């Protein structure tokens, strides 16, 4: 028997992808679809993808051969909430950038974790507003120059995976595009889990922030991620000073809790809306 060769194409519409050369989104797309393939999904019919505005929101819309709802900026999680409450049987996955998920949409992110809404959120963190040309984001490292912080960012970045843990997520992890294997495994695991699941992928935008930070190409950025990455297991042994400028990778939480759907069902005795 010939082993089936994985082809990303079976999940994609025959359209030209819009991402810049070297964009980290390709790695995320590949990792996600490989995970889906490894789990035995021949197609994406049991999935619904919700996304907002930003480069990352174009991952699923309209490139995946699937139901995809490409919403306005920041509101992918509320739309996913409506979908999941009406159709709890579907796998609802949200793709979004850091601006979409923890900038304009932050409140929804926290509340979805608090509710334990049964969805997977994959946040591609390129540390910048890339689609609009490289403005400072709530994830931009301190001191980094962007088009709206020409003298260097004077705010500290948000730690989204930690926030997800505090808010009540069932799973929270951070990887970078230098960790495609770990990312794929993480996606495979979370697609088999229930509850609010969150994966942040620190990703390169060579076109905007990469150039401004002095990286010559995407490869240099990915190398930088590899160098800066510290496994979460090692963090306890490190001093705060040592952790400055590092990217903590790994799984921050993995736990089981009744989901929003289950809590509604147990209170109201229903699973799926009639008619």
């Amino acid at each position: 028997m010939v082993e089936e060769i994985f082809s990303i194409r079976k999940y994609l519409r025959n359209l030209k992808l819009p991402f810049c050369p070297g964009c980290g989104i390709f790695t995320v797309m590949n990792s996600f679809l490989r995970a889906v393939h490894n789990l035995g999904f021949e197609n994406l019919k049991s999935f619904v993808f919700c996304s907002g505005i930003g480069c990352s929101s174009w991952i699923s819309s309209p490139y995946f051969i699937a139901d995809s709802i490409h919403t306005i900026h920041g509101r992918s999680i509320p739309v996913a909430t409506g979908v999941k409450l009406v159709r709890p049987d579907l796998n609802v996955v949200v793709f979004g950038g850091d601006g979409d998920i923890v900038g304009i949409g932050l409140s929804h992110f926290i509340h979805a974790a608090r509710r334990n809404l049964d969805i997977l959120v994959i946040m591609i963190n390129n540390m910048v507003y890339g689609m609009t040309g490289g403005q400072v984001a709530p994830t931009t490292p301190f001191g980094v120059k962007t088009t709206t912080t020409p003298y260097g960012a004077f705010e500290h970045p948000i730690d989204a995976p930690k926030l997800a843990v505090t808010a009540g997520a069932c799973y929270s992890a951070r990887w970078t595009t230098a960790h495609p294997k770990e990312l794929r495994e993480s996606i495979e695991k979370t697609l088999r889990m229930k509850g609010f699941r969150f994966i942040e992928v620190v990703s390169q935008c060579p076109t905007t922030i990469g150039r401004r930070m002095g990286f010559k190409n995407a490869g240099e950025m990915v190398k930088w991620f590899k160098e800066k990455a510290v496994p979460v297991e090692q963090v306890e042994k490190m001093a705060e000073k040592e952790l400055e400028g590092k990217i903590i990778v790994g799984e921050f939480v993995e736990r089981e809790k009744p989901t929003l759907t289950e809590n509604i069902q147990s209170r109201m005795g229903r699973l799926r809306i009639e008619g």
Partner: protein
Amino acid sequence: MKMVKPGVYFWQGNEACAEGAITAGCRFFAGYPITPASEIAEHMAKRLPQIGGIAIQMEDEMASIGAVIGASWAGAKAMTATSGPGFSLMQESIGYAFMTETPCVVVDVQRLGPSTGQATKCGQGDVMQSRWGTHGDHAAIVLAPNSVQEMFDLTIKAFNLAEKYRTPVIILADATIAHMREKITVPSLEEIEIINRKKPEADEKAFFGFEEVPPMPAVGEGFNVPVTGSTHNEYGIRFTADPMVHRKLVERLNSKIENHVEEIAEVETYNFDDCKIGIVSFGCTSRAVPEAVEEAEKRGVKAGYIRLKTIWPFPEKKVEIMAEKAETIIVPEINLKQLFYEVERASKGLAKVVPLNKIGGGELITPEELLNKILEAAN
């Protein structure tokens, strides 16, 4: 308790709106508390689980309308309810619902703005927000109930129009209508027309064009539907630069409503085509009109009225007919001239259009004040 039994009830306006929604088939509600609309959320929270639906209080109004849009694409009839400030927060998503042809109902129980204004008091200041609140070229369907009965009836109509035209429909109520209690008759289900969205055939792929109102699949039905608020072709594929794709889409979205004004725009009239003094009004203000007209007639003034049950699309032909005979048209409203200019435009200079405005403290325009304006205009 499941569906409300036919019969006579003594209900609050907001309660009638919620029961109307349930009767129309609404099975999903998402909202955020705000005076004077909160009773709709409270009633839906109690009632929807009893009939297999879901009501959820979201973290804000943007999330509420977002969840409603998601629920609609998952196949449910869905509604949210708010007031002026929350309605402002929903505007971006109302435009999204228009662009993606997502049927849903948004109730705006108007209060007195701008901003927090007099939050518990009645106002009619969202006439233009309901029409032009979201950006870009769009058409709006806005219904304006003036009684508890119409909070029920027009909510059903709102769902029917939303489903038929695949578009968001707004119910522009006000604090007076929403909070008062009145007698209401709930007809039997056989007497109520319920319209459901057209579903696609198994092999269909064009859910965003070719037909005036294309069929709408739900997610999870195997249609692989790409939904986007970006300009898209008939198959939902994004085209962010092609002028023809944009023109074709946005012109169709507007014309599918504008071509059916006669069917959508409902008015109640009295001597409107044969009066000396005409009145054009809506909502709580319109409740003072019949008495004022009757008193004017007793004093020998031939008066008539158009009462807008649909504000947008604006029934301009009716107003033009009124203006052909009438010397003066009075436009009373609890705002500083919002409907007025629309009536002036529609009357094409054939009649003098006079405003009658009053704002503050929730005070309404009384029949006496309206009568005085009629008599003043007649002499």
